[in-house]
């Protein structure tokens, strides 16, 4: 078997909650006092394996195991994507591999120089010029001055900021700064490259350039570890994926398989959800009865982008005279929150805002209609929140309703199916001939 370049063996990481952030001297002295002088025993935490833990506890339940018994073996030249929800432990794992923190237990063996890009532009100093920052940032990432000098022209060329290379970067736009930062990172010569979400920067064109560069690095035989919420990018870049959940490895295998299982897990059954009376999410004020999606002619969650559709929220209200607001948010498959809409923004028949009309006890249906040609094709999740007096959440349904928007048939035949962008509004375009005088004026 080929020698692995990265070996992660039973790694666990414990963070103490509540007292994150530097302690005050007073607190530490108080702890020392109670430990040494009052001879109180320190409570140790028994972990899942029944071993005595290093994590001291002042109260039970204050520890957070960001990683728990994670193992993996990565061979040279592999490109591995790491997926998981927020808080699954992805960033902690990368931080340990990047050596900015140490594991609470377990061991990692790295056989090669490691460059970690947990952020682009680390150490950029606003008062220094682009040139000076290129050298500084490169050195921080572990490049020698010789390497940077050799690649300097290529870096500047890749970033596209050559005109401003001797300008202090505080005068750069944020896009320019990111482009320069990524360019430096792209020319690192390490054998292991660890990348966290940094590709989510810049315009679409630069993103594509970055992804191509990453591919090129992988082809050169570098080992790449890549964390991203953009599953499509991750799937295209990484043949292998590792799915983390609550600090543990759920699945490790070919990325097609792991990604589809992962997406399956975060999706619900369909376009409608109903609850028996009194069984739905909610409390003593209001409970949900059902949420469903319909297009004008049928009840379905398979929709066409140039047709309007509605989201209906049924609920039962127990408390009389309640001012109720309903919020919905839409999330796409890359976890982008596209928008939030609240029922108070709409007005009732007579023109008064909904919030001003308290509801009485009873069952209600709230309907929200989305216009045609708003979103692009793809898969969406709906979150529903019912709140009393604007801010007190009473009933919540998250990720239980989904729908798919399809291209309209005409559209599909004319254009490539992957139309870029999060939304696809239909805008007004027109063409008219102009005379040469008009050109001069503008």
């Amino acid at each position, binding site marked *: 078997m*080929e*020698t692995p*370049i990265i*070996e992660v063996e039973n790694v666990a990481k414990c*963070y103490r909650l509540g007292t*994150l*952030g*530097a*302690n*005050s*001297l007073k607190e*530490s002295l108080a702890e020392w006092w109670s430990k040494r002088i009052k001879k109180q025993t320190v409570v140790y935490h028994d972990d899942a394996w029944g071993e005595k833990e*290093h994590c001291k506890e002042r109260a039970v339940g204050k520890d957070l195991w960001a990683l728990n018994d994670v193992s993996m073996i990565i061979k*040279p*030249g592999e490109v591995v994507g790491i997926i998981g929800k927020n808080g699954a432990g992805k960033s902690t794992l990368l*931080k*340990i*591999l*990047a*050596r*900015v*923190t*140490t*594991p*609470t*237990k*377990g*061991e*990692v*063996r*790295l*056989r*090669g*120089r*490691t460059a*970690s890009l*947990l*952020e682009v532009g*680390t*150490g950029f*100093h606003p*008062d*220094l010029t682009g040139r*000076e920052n290129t*050298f*500084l940032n490169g*050195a*921080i*990432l*572990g*490049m*020698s*001055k010789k390497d940077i000098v050799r690649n300097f022209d290529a870096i500047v060329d890749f970033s596209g900021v050559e005109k401003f290379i001797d300008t*202090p970067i505080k005068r750069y736009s944020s896009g320019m700064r990111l482009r320069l930062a990524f360019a430096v990172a792209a020319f690192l010569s390490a*054998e292991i490259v660890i990348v966290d979400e940094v590709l989510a920067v810049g315009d679409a064109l630069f993103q594509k350039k970055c992804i191509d560069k990453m591919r090129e690095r992988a082809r050169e*035989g570098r080992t790449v570890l890549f964390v991203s919420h953009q599953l499509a990018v991750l799937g295209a870049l990484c043949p292998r994926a590792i799915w983390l959940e609550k600090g543990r490895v759920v699945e490790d295998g070919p990325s097609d398989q792991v990604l589809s299982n992962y997406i399956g897990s975060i999706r619900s059954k369909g376009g409608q959800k109903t609850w028996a009376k009194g069984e739905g999410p909610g409390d003593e004020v209001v409970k949900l009865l059902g949420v469903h999606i319909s297009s004008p002619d049928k009840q379905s969650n398979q929709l066409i982008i140039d047709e309007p559709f509605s989201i209906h929220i049924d609920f039962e209200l127990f408390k009389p005279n309640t001012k109720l607001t309903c919020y919905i948010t839409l999330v796409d498959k890359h976890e982008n929150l596209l928008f939030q809409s609240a029922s108070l923004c709409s007005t009732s028949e007579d023109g008064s805002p909904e919030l001003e009309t308290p509801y009485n006890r009873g069952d209600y249906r709230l309907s929200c209609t989305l216009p045609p040609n708003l979103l692009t094709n793809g898969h969406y999740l709906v979150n529903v929140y019912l709140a009393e007096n604007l801010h007190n959440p009473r009933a919540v349904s998250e990720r239980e309703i989904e729908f798919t928007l399809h291209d309209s048939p005409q559209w599909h035949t004319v254009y490539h199916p992957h139309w870029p962008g999060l939304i696809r509004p239909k805008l007004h375009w027109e063409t008219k001939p102009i005379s040469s005088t008009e050109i001069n004026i503008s």
Partner: protein
Amino acid sequence: MDTTPQPLPSTSTPQLGRPLVIRPSRPLLKIDWAEIWHYRDLLMLLVKRDFSSKYRQTILGPLWFLLQPLLTTCVFSVVFGQIARISTGGVPAILFYLNGLIGWNYLAQTFTMGATTFTTHADMFQKVYFPRLVVPLSILISNIFSLLVQLGLFLGFYVYFFATGTEGLPLPNITWGLFPLFVLHLGLLGLGCALWSSALTARYRDLSYLVPVLVQLWMYGTPIIYPLSAVPAAYHDWITLNPATAPIEGIRHIFLSAGVIDYNLYMRSIGITGIILLTGLILFKRAEIHSTDTA
């Protein structure tokens, strides 16, 4: 756990060698000097950054390197020389203060700038690994520049007073060669204090307010504005426990023939400096491991 490197079969990537092992923290005094040497380019770039970012967008620019000690010396001359009339041991006041400040400023600047290593670089430390010791070392080096400027300033005044026939000033002589050693001593002492205070402020932010006060108090406890010979006998033991006393007096002795160089005093100072530096390194290594989890 078995950590001995396994003999590796030859692979397509020949650089696979002894693996780098990341393990739960072991707070030991184990400093990888080879690694720091590997990051020497970063060290020098940090020095350059300190230097060139400090005086960007200032009117006088690097002239401040001259003005700062000059203004301090003027204040000292007026307050301690003219008003309080503290003895300068027969040496012209300006020369006396400038001389004391050369070494002291190097120590104090290294101390105060190094004390915030973890707090000012927290963002960077969260994201990238490099030997953290590079940061205080770069401060030690970048302060050499202002030290040289102040030395030049002092020598300028020395020449002026010498030319105008001030009595008691020694001619340039071989003992001046000891100056770099005194500076090294003060620098390492400042580094030790910086390591201590940066490690402690990484955990207790309160202490960052204490450092400037501490430095100020320490200055008054060191023979900068007064000669060691003027210290009452009752305080003599205390002031000789101060590890900064010996090298400051040493610099005064070689340039002005005014200070006291005492072999025992000096050995004691070296010993105390060594202890501060060593314990500082241990604390710094510990803070290096824990700082990213608590920042």
